């Protein structure tokens, strides 16, 4: 018995090659699209997380600093209106049997080009003044706000800066928006709000 004859024209036909190539390109394109979307999402998430982290860290620092302050020494003392800076003194504990208070400190918003900064200052205005920038990613205005004399973001404040303080009795409401344009032109914004009570 003889073996069956095999055709000399082995391999894919042109149609097969075209179909396979189209399919392969489609799969790769889809994979690339998925990858890009996932990376974009991860990048967004990472950026958002990074700014939220930074916003929370800054907010915690501000909160802890103000929490230990003496309500009577807070400047300005204007209630219900928002300000973008606050001056305070806090307790250092007992020395020689008496409560000792710190030198005055200030936390303020400094507007810059595109973004602003949060500055912490010790002995503000004095010769021995010390200053540290806690963040330079502060939005010029709080998220959702525009300079138009209206309360655009519905928080009861008009045209508030990216860092704002509102005194309500012994409560201080602190609002902060960080923002930064990403390399692809997207604008990532993160806002946090914190309420602290003056403990002294």
């Amino acid at each position, binding site marked *: 018995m003889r073996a069956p004859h095999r055709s000399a024209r082995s391999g894919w036909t042109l149609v097969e090659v075209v179909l396979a190539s189209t399919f392969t390109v489609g799969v790769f394109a889809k994979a690339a699209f998925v990858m890009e979307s996932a990376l974009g999402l991860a990048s967004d*998430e990472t950026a958002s997380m990074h700014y939220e982290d930074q916003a929370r860290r800054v907010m915690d620092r501000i909160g802890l600093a103000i929490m230990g302050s003496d309500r009577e020494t807070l400047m300005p003392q204007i209630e219900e209106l928002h300000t973008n800076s606050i001056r305070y003194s806090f307790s250092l504990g007992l020395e020689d049997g008496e409560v000792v208070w710190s030198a005055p400190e200030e936390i303020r918003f400094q507007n810059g080009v595109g973004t602003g900064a949060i500055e912490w200052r010790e002995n503000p205005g004095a010769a021995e003044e010390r200053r540290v920038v806690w963040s330079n990613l502060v939005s010029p205005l709080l998220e959702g706000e525009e300079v138009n004399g209206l309360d655009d973001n519905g928080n009861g404040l008009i045209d508030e800066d990216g860092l704002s303080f509102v005194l309500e009795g012994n409560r201080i409401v602190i609002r902060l928006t960080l923002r930064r344009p990403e390399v692809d032109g997207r604008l990532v914004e993160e806002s946090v709000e914190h309420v602290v009570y003056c*403990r002294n």
Partner: protein
Amino acid sequence: MRTRFLPAPERRGSALVFSVMSVMVVSILAAGFLQLSMSVTRRLNVYSDTQQAINLAEAGLAEAYSGLAVARTGNVGTMEAPAVLGGGLLWVEAEHHASGLVELECTAMYGTGRATLGLVCEPVGLGVASLGFFTDEDLRLNPDVRLDSYDSKVSTYADQLNTALNNKGSIGSNGDVSVASGNTIMGDIVYGPTGQLSVASGSVITGGSSARPEEEVLPPVVVPDIPLQKAVKYTGGIPMVVPPGQAGYAGLDIGKNSTLILKGPLDLVVNSLILRLGAKLEFDTTNGPVQLFVNESLDFSTSSVVSTSTQVTSDSLIFVAAPEGKSVNFGAKSQFYGFIYAPNADVHISAQYELYGGLVCKELQLAAQGKMHYDLSLGATLSGQLPILHSWRVVELPQQVAARRIDPFQLLGLDPNDLLPPAQSHQDQVLDVRYVDTSGRTTSYFGLESEFDWSQVGSLLYGVRDGIAFYLPEDYALSGDVANDPLVDLVDSSLSSKQLRDALLAASPCSTEALVAACLRDPPMSQSDLKSVLDANDPLAPQTLLSAVTSPSLDSSALKDVLLDNSPLPTEVLDAVLLRNPPLSPSDLTKVLTIQ
């Protein structure tokens, strides 16, 4: 037929490559998302642990702060044995300052979170006067000394003699306490943490005794900054008057038969103060208190006289800031209503210098037959008042706490099951309570709080921690709930029958409780001693007569005399007489029944 196998066709497919690549892409994406997710979780955990640690530290501070309102020390747990709460642990360190302020610092650990918060507060009315009679070094009492108590806000000392208020004396030391024979201590003794109490026979201690959990720290005297005039040696016939306000002298030497009057309100600073023979010193506190600060030496000679114009003990205060090793001598004849504070000085007090108030010093030489009466009103009464809050702050973490952010139980090598909650982790103290227990019986406890079972307390009548009353009803003086009847304690003491007879005769008329206790005493009083006491207290109450009927001290004849003296007898007493075992002799019984 031969079968021929054909070679398999070449497989050049790329499915495997595609599959592997796809799996790799998916794996990389999954790993990326996992890392992202873990990073988010870790970040949230750190944040939440820190918040939890802050909350725990706040809770710890609140526990210590409210503890100060009930005379706790403010120390809750330690780093070695912290308190456990909500899955974390915490401890509070309290520092008491001479200014009266207390600084609390609470460190809390939860997971990777750490926080230390502090506050400064001022407990209401705390002070060294709560220590009563206290010495920093060993306290040795000479024979026949009497130390007791009264409350000047209620009435005079004489009115409160042999009442419950007379039985709340507070004697303490950071070292040993030796009680000589003939001493009468109407109250409690608290000796040093490593000290001992030795009691000679023939002495009476009506209260309890205990070691203090830790040494008392006596704050230094803060002398007001008053300029000193040159020394004065006064020998005039007209009294020298120091007017109200502030005054200072390098020395005040009051000569023979001369008088010095200190008119309050006055702060007087002297380097030395001497009262010569017959000299007089008067604290005129009619218009305000007098605070006398002595920088170096004080000598009241034996025949000098010191007096106070009022009996308000908190108005006449002597602060001795003399350096260590200096002695001050209160040899004068006096009934001094005030408080003496000499944390570094050896204080000599003569038998004729009778002190009503309090005394805290480094060392005390109280002459034989000396008398000191602690004024309970000098002791702080908190009545649950919360301390005044001065400041709150976030404290920098201690280095040993901040260093390693791992599970705190693992870090400190502790088992949470071995730790107590904050409410049970307060520093141990000497507790003095009188209460009605769950079975309705009024009873007292004096000793370390760690050894006391609070669950047996039905209702509290009186409570003191380390000499500071944290529970004192407004009418406590009237209710008599603060302490036992001192005469009952006397009966229960180790006094001999004769000594007890003398003490009870001196205190007569005695309370019914004391007479009942005397009749039923174990070991019994001698027949003649008990009969003398009963005779001195005629007419006797039915309860006393019932106790006399069953008393092992009285034989048939002596009991007959007592019954005849108190006839006609109540029915229940007659019943008890008829049922007595051993019975009265027929002749005695006949005499008793005939007279009814």
